Structure formats: structure tokens, C-alpha cells
């Protein structure tokens, strides 16, 4: 591994994503060239149905890529065994967990599964990592609560703690701010920014909160119908990329405030 200051975690080269069935191939996006560096907060934005989820599913090996190359820590993603991938990349998904009768501690501790023995016993180290993740996400007061007692915002923090406990270089979150009120949307994204700074991990999330992402992210990936662009939020604003994000009949991007305005 090269000893550069900005170590590259995830890299795609001419990646094409989409769905393949026996009969046909549906391409969603092509020519995707992304570089995710260590210690960066990256926001993925784009309209509904543009392929954000497909991109995340491809990056997390839930579905296969169509063509191109995909490297995680300089090793092709498809060469990772399940267990090795679990130690390199953790996920926060949009789906609800199956059993809400787990306590917060138990749920976060499940993040240690790739490291525990055949019956899942937690070692001293596992317990201290779980407790550390709980502290980092400020959920100590929830530790012994059951998940069905939590609000959506609290549950999202717990899910982030679980991903932290998994102790991976890269954390990927699929729309972590859905169902949250305005305060908690900002809170969760701010928390992600804080975690990136404190832990040096790379965090990639998809979101519809473009204005918040502009303020908090180091890098943003913008998916439009024609291309996938990645750069710092400032450069993207200067290039006018956000203007191409949506049809122009209803809303327009205001470069001064960094947010969308409804056309009068």
C-alpha cells in the first residue's frame, strides 16, 4: 500500500451499474470514476430513481457490477470473501431491523459478529469497542433500552453505533436521514462529520438533504441522468452542477445560499 497522506479507500474505474437478467441488461449509469479517500465525509445526491441505491448496492457487493473495475483498499471488491468484506465495510440500511426486542447494547454488539467466536461470545476487547461506539454516538443513556422503545432518530444513532462497532475503514449509509425531523436530519449528518474527524474513517451516505450535505461534506457525488460527477461542494456549485440535478420547471438552485428555491 502506498504511503500517501491521503490513502485511497475505494476506487472505481469506468464502472457501469445496472441490472442483468438472462434476457437483457439494463444499464443505469456508466463511466463512473470515483475515488473515496481516508477520513472523508462523502455525500451522494441525485433525484429519485436516478440510481443512487443501485450505485450503493454495487459498491457494497449486494448486486454485481456490469463492467469496469471496483477496488476496496486496492483489492478488487469481487475478491473479498463475505467475512473479509464485513471487516472492511459496514452498512446502515433503510430497512427496519427484524427484531426490535433487542436491547441497544445487544444490537450494537452484533456489529462485533465478524470478530467473535463460533457462538458469538464477546471478548473484553469486543465489549470495550461496543462501549466506545456507544460513547461516540452519545447514546449511553439508551444503552439498556429495548429498540421498540426508541424514536426514529434514536434508532438511527444506534444503527450508526452498530456500524462503528464493526470497526471498518468504510461506513456506507443509505439515506440515513429519511423519516427524521429537520433537527435530527442535521444532527445525524453532523454526527457523521464528527465521526469522520474523530476516527479517520471514510463515511459515504446517500441523501436528499442537498443543502445540509453541501455544508457538511468534504466531497459530494452528484448523479444526474447523463453523468456521475464527484468533487468538493464548492467546486460543484461553481461548475453549476446542482442546476442540472432536477427538471427546471419547479425549483432552481441558488448558489449564494447553497440551497434550492421554489420558483415564484
Amino acid at each position, binding site marked *: 500500500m502506498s504511503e500517501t497522506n491521503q490513502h485511497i479507500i475505494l476506487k472505481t474505474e469506468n464502472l457501469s451499474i445496472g441490472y442483468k437478467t438472462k434476457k437483457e441488461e439494463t444499464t443505469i449509469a456508466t463511466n463512473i470514476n470515483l475515488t473515496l479517500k481516508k477520513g472523508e465525509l462523502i455525500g451522494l445526491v441525485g433525484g429519485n430513481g436516478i440510481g443512487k441505491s443501485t450505485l450503493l448496492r454495487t459498491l457494497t457487493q449486494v448486486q454485481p457490477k456490469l463492467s469496469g473495475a471496483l477496488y476496496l483498499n486496492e483489492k478488487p471488491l469481487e475478491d473479498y470473501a463475505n467475512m473479509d468484506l*464485513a471487516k472492511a465495510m459496514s452498512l446502515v*440500511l433503510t430497512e427496519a431491523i427484524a427484531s426490535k*426486542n433487542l436491547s441497544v447494547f445487544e444490537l450494537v454488539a*452484533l456489529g462485533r459478529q465478524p470478530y467473535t467466536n*463460533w457462538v*458469538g461470545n464477546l471478548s473484553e476487547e469486543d465489549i470495550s469497542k461496543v462501549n466506545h461506539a456507544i460513547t461516540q454516538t452519545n447514546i449511553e443513556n439508551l444503552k439498556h433500552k429495548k429498540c421498540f422503545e426508541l424514536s426514529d432518530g434514536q434508532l438511527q444513532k444506534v444503527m450508526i453505533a452498530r456500524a462503528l462497532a464493526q470497526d471498518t475503514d468504510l461506513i456506507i449509509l443509505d439515506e440515513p436521514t429519511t423519516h427524521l425531523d429537520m433537527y435530527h436530519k442535521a444532527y445525524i449528518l453532523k454526527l457523521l462529520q464528527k465521526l469522520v474527524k474523530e476516527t479517520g474513517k471514510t463515511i459515504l451516505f446517500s441523501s436528499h438533504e442537498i443543502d445540509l450535505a453541501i455544508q457538511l461534506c468534504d466531497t459530494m457525488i452528484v448523479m444526474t441522468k447523463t453523468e456521475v460527477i464527484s468533487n468538493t461542494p464548492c467546486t460543484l456549485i461553481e461548475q453549476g452542477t446542482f442546476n442540472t440535478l432536477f427538471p427546471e420547471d419547479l425549483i432552481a438552485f441558488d448558489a449564494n445560499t447553497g440551497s434550492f428555491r421554489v420558483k415564484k
Partner: protein
Amino acid sequence: MSETNTYKGSFILLILTLIVCFFANISLGSVSIPLKEIFNSLVGASSNASWQYIIVDYRLPKAVTAILVGSGLGISGLLMQTLFRNPLAGPFVLGITSGASLGVALVILGGGLFGGIFASLLISKWTIVIAASLGSFLVLLAVLIVSSRVKDTMAILIIGLMFGSITSAVVSVLSYFSSAEQLQQYIFWGFGSLGNLSWNEVFIFFVIYCFGILLSILAIKGLNTLLLGENYAKSLGLNIKRSRIIIILATSLLAGTITAFAGPIAFIGLAVPHLTRQIFNTSNHKILLPAVFLFGAIVMLICDSIAQLPTSDYTLPINAITSLIGAPVVIWLLVRKRKMVF
């Protein structure tokens, strides 16, 4: 985890209850035997040979069978409920009982179709055990083949139910062409019975049962991961297909042998995991699995003691007792707690 210590008291209590139920089960029956003589019989020092025989060769294997049946059904129910994320799942959702029923029906009812003498030769206790095992094994094989092809776990649940429908339809057709005697014999098998096993049979039962339990223990970590849902489980490095097959295999071994040796025993597999969750209030299978084991054994011993109608000459069908006693208890627990823990 320190949580295991929290439950230590409950576990000790359960083990003590199990021991008490075990001895109570042995002491109760149509013939009253003094307590002292029961202990003498167990150590082989009874003065009364027929008492000795009743205890050692009838009541003791029956009590052991009750423990194996209760714990085995409880555990397979727990495995199915977690795998399918469905509180209504039980050990028989995969169509295993239906398979066993079909095997038995073919032997008892189908005998008429193959000719009378042939049939009467066929129907011994072992024939029924073998037929039930073969039937449930074939259904299991079909479910396993399907589950290695199907991506969605829920599809397996539906497919299991479909297998059940097919087999019960075949049983209906067979019943239609059967004589009253054959039907009666088949219905009696359906009542379930714990008391017909010799020590040899109990031994074979126990060996297969142990394989099932061993697989369940191997599945504990996977089961806990599955509490997050399959996508999270996959992201945690769990090999979903392998875990699924281990869980299905464990359930089939347990539920299949139990049905083969003791008939299709209802209710225990569905209810015991719920009873256990109400009392232990956890989803951690490291705690649930041994707790369900103990609970299942206790409930089955109690049901069997009641079915004996102590001091009378009658024995009620065990299948009726499990539901008669169990269902009100579960209803009472759910109403009292007002919250279903799952």
C-alpha cells in the same frame, strides 16, 4: 456477556422444576406405587417385580421421550420463528409433519390398495416409524433443494405450506378409499403418543435428536445475526444460505424424528418459544435456546402427567392435552403482558 448471569437464577429454577416434573411424571400413573418403591425401582432394588417393570420399562422411557419431544419441538419452533421472522411459524411449517403423515397414511390407508395380507404384514410399529421418517425426509429434501435455489426466505415458507397442502390432499384421497378400521388406526396415530417406545427405540430417537440439537447450537450465532434481517446479516459476513440450511436441517431432524416416534404433536413447537420469550424477555438465542429446551421438556412432562389421568385406567390423547392446557396459558400470558415480545 454479563447478561448470562442475570438469568442464572431463572435457569436454576427451571432445572429444579424439570427435575420435580420428571419425578412427578414417573410417580403418577394408572397404578399407584408408593414413592419409596419408585426410588427403589429406579435403582433396581424394588421388592415388587411388576412395579419395577412399570417404572423402568414403561414410565421411565415415557418420561425420557416426553423430555426429548418437548425440548425438540420447542427448539425447532424457535428456529423457524427466527428464520422466517414470523411469530406464527412452528416446527411444522416446512411441511415435515405432512410428509410424515403421508408416509404413515400410505402404509396404513394405502395398505388396502395393495391387498389385505400384504398390508397386515406391513403394519408394525417400526414400519410406521420408518414410513413417517421417509415421508418427512422426502419433504425435507424437496425443501432443501428449493431453498438452495430460492433467494427469498419467505418463498420457502410458502413452498413448505404448499407441500403440506399437497400431502394432506393425498391423505384425503387415501382416506376416501379406506375402511373404518384403517381410518381409526390412522386417526389414533394422529393423536400422538409418548408411551409406546421401548428403550431401543428411545436410544435411536436420542441419537438423531442429538444431531439436531448439535446443529441448533451451531446455528446460534447465525440466528442472532438474523435478528437484524438478512441484508444486515450478509453485511456482517454471515453466509446466509449455509445458515439457512443448517437451521432447516436441524428443524427437520428434530421435528421429523419426533413425528416419526411420537406422532404429530401439536402446539408445543409454536407455544413454548412464546412462553419462554414472555418470561425471559430477550431475543438472544444463547439464552433462548437452553431456556426453550427446559421449558419444552417441563411443559411436555406436565401435559403427559395430566393425559395419564392419574389413578384412572384411561389415557387421553396427548395431542389434545397439549392444546387444552397450553393455549389458555399463552392467551393469559399475552393478555396480562399486553405486549407481544418477538
